[in-house]
């Protein structure tokens, strides 16, 4: 440093080191960057952390936190289906493909969810038979790629999820880079082994909401109106999309915010498309309310749900249940400081790994390598998933009881206040310490 004048060392705020590195990498690669995990935006998004529960005091009476009953039973899909889903808890495992995840990870998620009376979901690669075998409730995704789609699997499912989009990359298809398209995965998807698989963005046989009405009817006819039909949306124009999906006949609508995870996607989509989950749940509720279908069409919220606190806030804002994906993988062991030398070999380290796309997952979750997969013993992993989902449920119950609710589904917007002006504007909740809601006049 001797002889240097500090005032000349002025790094650009526009071309920061990470921006320069990004340009250097793209100059080498000749394409945009892929990675997994989900958004890594340096600027924080508005989130559930911007809300706080105003629990009971004199105006409302709490339930005994550790003793009085607080129901978590969750019923989804009673609008048209003969067999709605009944879950013991409002926390469900979202769709993640066998291909993106290892066999061990898929089976561990199924077993873990089963132990706590909840569901798991297939993903962009068809139904893994072991997943059906080990799931108590299995949601079968029908995606644009239709990889491995079989009427027999469809009929073996407890619900069908017609996926329009995903929060991490709304309006684009999935990606599975060649390193993960093993011969087994290739056979299941009817693809050549080792190709960089890119799923389509649109369904092959329908485009807009009018077509979707007919598609939903086809799925109902194919399953004899037995099971609920979910429609999953990446959170973009949520208010209108939710209304269109509800009008099209969905029993359940899933809205996946931009914090949602992915095993592989162009980085820019993860960071620069969609809207945050906090905003998405508010728009979704408003859409259903304006149609008069709030309560009849159930709402599942996904995208960066990390804890029972996030779940409880989402439910207070209008969700009937939440999906977890990345959090469930972290419960499996994602980013845990084990096999640290293998994180280093990927150029990363525990708590900062987002290398799901490489297929070299050090802890055996997002890989098809049999040796890496062995690092995820199914039984132990299933225990951790069940424990985490159970802990989340206890957190939701604790907050619900503190708000005086004997059922977690009774949580409501009145139980929350906004900690920031931004969150108050997004949610319509008053700013703490005031009655002020941006955009709302006194007396409205």
């Amino acid at each position, binding site marked *: 440093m001797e002889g240097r004048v500090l005032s000349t060392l002025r790094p650009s705020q526009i071309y920061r080191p990470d921006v320069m590195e990004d340009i250097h990498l793209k100059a080498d*690669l*000749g*394409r945009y960057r892929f990675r997994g995990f989900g958004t890594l935006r340096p600027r924080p998004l508005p989130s559930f952390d911007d809300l706080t529960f105003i629990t009971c005091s004199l105006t409302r009476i709490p339930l005994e936190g550790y003793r009085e009953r607080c129901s978590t039973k969750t019923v989804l899909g009673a609008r048209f289906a003969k067999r709605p889903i009944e879950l013991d808890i409002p926390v469900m495992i979202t769709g993640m493909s066998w291909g993106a995840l290892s066999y061990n990870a898929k089976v561990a998620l199924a077993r873990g969810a089963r132990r706590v009376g909840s569901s798991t979901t297939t993903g962009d690669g068809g139904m893994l038979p072991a997943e059906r075998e080990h799931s108590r409730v299995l949601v079968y995704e029908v995606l644009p*790629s*239709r*990889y491995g*789609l*079989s*009427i*027999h699997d*469809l*009929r073996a499912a407890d619900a069908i999820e017609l996926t329009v989009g995903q929060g991490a990359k709304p309006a684009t298809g999935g990606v599975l880079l*060649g390193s993960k398209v093993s011969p087994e995965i290739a056979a299941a*998807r*009817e*693809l*050549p082994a*080792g*190709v*960089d698989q*890119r799923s*389509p963005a649109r369904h*092959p*046989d*329908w485009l807009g909401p009018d*077509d979707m009405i*007919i*598609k939903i*009817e*086809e799925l109902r*006819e*194919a*399953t*004899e*109106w037995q099971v609920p039909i979910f429609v999953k949306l990446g959170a973009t124009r949520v208010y209108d999309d939710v209304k269109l999906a509800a009008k099209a006949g969905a029993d359940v609508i899933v809205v996946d915010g931009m914090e949602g995870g992915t095993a592989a996607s162009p980085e820019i989509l993860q960071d620069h498309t969609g809207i945050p989950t906090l905003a998405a749940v508010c728009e979704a509720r408003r859409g259903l309310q304006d149609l008069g279908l709030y309560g009849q069409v159930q709402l599942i919220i996904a995208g960066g749900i990390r804890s029972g606190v996030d779940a409880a806030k989402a439910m207070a804002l209008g969700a009937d249940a939440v999906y977890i994906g990345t959090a469930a993988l972290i419960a499996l062991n994602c980013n845990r400081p084990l096999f640290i030398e293998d994180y280093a070999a990927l150029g990363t380290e525990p708590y900062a790994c987002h290398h799901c796309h490489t297929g070299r997952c050090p802890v055996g979750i997002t890989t098809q390598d049999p040796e890496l997969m062995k690092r995820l013993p199914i039984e132990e992993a299933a225990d951790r998933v069940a424990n985490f989902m159970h802990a989340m449920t206890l957190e939701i119950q604790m907050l619900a009881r503190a708000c005086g609710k004997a059922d977690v589904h009774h949580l409501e917007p009145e139980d929350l206040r906004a900690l920031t002006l931004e969150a108050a504007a997004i949610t319509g909740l008053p700013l703490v310490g005031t009655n002020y809601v941006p955009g709302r006049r006194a007396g409205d």
Partner: protein
Amino acid sequence: MTTVDCASRSVREINEAIRRLVKDGASEILVANPGARHNLAVAVLTDVAITIDGPVGYYAGGMSDGARLTIRGSAGWGVAEGMLSGTVVVEGNAGNGAAASIRGGTVVVRGDAAARAGIAMKGGLLVIGGDTGYMTGFMMQRGRIIVCGNAEPALADSMYEGTIFVGGEIAELGNDTVVSDATPGERAEIRTALSRYGVKGPDAFRKIVSGRKLWNYDKKDLDVWKAAF
């Protein structure tokens, strides 16, 4: 032949009636007065001959496994989509996405097919007696498409594998395709397939397969990727 009359019945009632007849062991079913309803005869999982006596809407015969369906008229979007095995014969024309994502079986469109016929096919055979629309065979994975007439632009765009034969003019090949003349052996196979369903085709066919440049990203193929990616 047992008859299901669609007049004054909902799609749900019609399909329930078909399912009931199949369960009771019917081998031939006539579906009369279809009135272009959507979702007729979907998810039939038995080797049974079903004839729909008139035009149909979307997804006729969709998601079937083993049924033999004949449509005496034209079909709307997604005819036979997702089929695993069996046959669907459309006597007229077919709307968008005919045989979309089928994994097996045979779909025959005696007339013309609209856009995206055979999109994302994962197996099976699609025969088109007339012309075919934009993006036929888009992202095709496996199986065969035989087009006796002309093909509109973006034919076979981004196909992974599979083979498309075209007897007429090709307006424009899709991204990453390789075209050649069908060999005598392939022409014989085409003739056999066409004669099985009584479809007349030309003597010569062009053969389109994947160029495989899109299988894995390579800077050398930047222009191909720019168009596709």
